[in-house]
């Protein structure tokens, strides 16, 4: 079944890079079946490409002999798998309760205005994507957000200016 589906879309699958394949092969040694590796492969490809395009998803399904529909079901279930392009820096902004109590919404609105994007959007220069995230587990430093892999704590409006400036400078 899955091979038929893949055959009809095979020409759309992109070629996985050597680095991607080598990491996927490593994951195969850690899990007893390919279904489990599928989710890992989505993360690996995203790590290399920034997001999971249709072409990437098809390539993974083909490489691991998984159903495209199943893999798509998995890819769209998990919030840290991006099925749309994202900017260079993904901002995960905590919108949970402790940050809310500590006036995280005010800072978020400021950030949103500063970047001129709402949740789910990417800045025109392709630098930042803003996404809400559940509690980041750093509630004693609320409000918090994560940019890429960096946690930023005790956010204030002035702090936002500084943080965004740092990432813009890195890119410049």
């Amino acid at each position, binding site marked *: 079944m899955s091979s038929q589906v893949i055959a009809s879309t095979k020409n759309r699958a992109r070629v996985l890079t050597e680095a991607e394949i080598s990491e996927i092969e490593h994951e195969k040694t850690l899990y007893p079946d390919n279904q489990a590796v599928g989710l890992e492969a*989505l993360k690996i490809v995203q790590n290399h490409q920034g997001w999971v395009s249709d072409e990437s998803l098809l390539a993974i399904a083909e490489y691991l002999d998984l159903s495209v529909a199943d893999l798509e079901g998995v890819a769209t*279930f998990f919030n840290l798998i991006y099925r749309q392009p994202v900017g260079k820096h993904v901002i995960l902004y905590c919108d949970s309760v402790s940050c809310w*109590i500590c006036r995280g919404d005010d800072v978020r609105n400021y950030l949103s205005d500063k970047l001129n994007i709402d949740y789910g959007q990417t800045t025109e220069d392709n630098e930042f994507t803003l996404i809400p995230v559940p509690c980041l587990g750093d509630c004693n430093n609320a409000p918090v957000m994560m940019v890429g892999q960096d946690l930023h704590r005790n956010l204030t409006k002035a702090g936002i200016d500084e943080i965004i400036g740092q990432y813009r400078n890195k890119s410049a």
Partner: protein
Amino acid sequence: MSRPPLEIGAYEANDGYQSLHTIAAGMSAADVLETIKSSGLKGRGGAGFPTGLKWSFVPQGESSPQQKYLVVNADEMEPGTFKDRLLMEGDPHLLLEGMIISAYTIGASKAYIFLRGEYHGSVKTLTKAIAEAYDKGYLGNNILGTGFHLDIILHTSAGRYICGEETALLNALEGKRANPRAKPPFPQVSGLWGKPTIVNNVETLCNLPGIITYGIDWYQGLGVGADAGTKMFGVSGRVKNPGVWEMPLGVTIRELLEDKAGGLQDGLGLKAFLPGGGSTDFMLPEHLDLALDYDEISQKGGSRLATGTMIVLDDQTCPVGMIGNLMKFFAHESCGFCTPCRDGLPWVDTIFRDFEAGRGSEKDLNILKEQVDYMGPGRTFCALAPGATAPLGSGLRYFEDDFKEHIKQKRCTFKD
């Protein structure tokens, strides 16, 4: 973290991995099981289920499946909960030592740490600690000459709160959509890839080394009330010194809130608090002298100790808005599998948005009360929606005046 974690030599010099030497000197798996059962340790992930009893459900003996698994629930996502990250980034070897004890007892040769995808710091500390433990022979083949072998695999999650539910977590680990599974069969009998599986919380496992190394009497002596041991307790919200502390089970809520967290920030008063994360019932200032132990919080406080991380609502913050924030979270995180949760939570969320916009009505209040019932324990497939009804139901009871003011004044009364 105020300091990096101990490297393995320093950890060992402070009695680290001592429990494994104790076991290697002649404790059978059955002996360890009996010790943990007698210690009175209850699971620290939220439900408070006795750890030894949970382990005892794993089938043992020749006729049982030879492959068994230990899975660590390190998917800390309960709103307002920030204790497991501290343990993993501050003391990763303590978790590994606990895992080895647990795996030895249930006979698991493979263990997965299911870690929140956003916990990049924990990835670093755990990866380093796992490598150190392999080097020293605490992991791998024939650990300390016991004939027991264990491999630990660090798995980072791709997100979603529902993965904290243990059967949903197992589906996620198998690479499936993280919908919870029907129970029975329980994971202890048929879990990961259909094999007997124990899912333990990070903090629970961190309790094990001390129990084995120093004994049951020492462990039970740590608690000052009915429950044994210590617990990680946290306070967040607008208090002077928010944080997380390891304290004996049974200290009063007042001690945590006032002595440790320094009380409310200047100019603010205490309106209420959630004692153990977003899925617990509100408690009031009149409850401050209750003890932080499992029974007292549920029997006298009408709530649950759960994760032990308290979220403080001050008197200048809107309770309706706070509950609305929680309902938005739960609505977003519903896995969509069962109807009361999938349809009930977004309905509740919409009503709270109406209240925020000054469009709330008496009729809405009745719908909210009905939803507390429709999504309550026993009505849904898993504990997500019942968890949401905890702050919702208690909030409707305790803050009825605030809801009514929103209706009367057609606006959020906490905004100018």
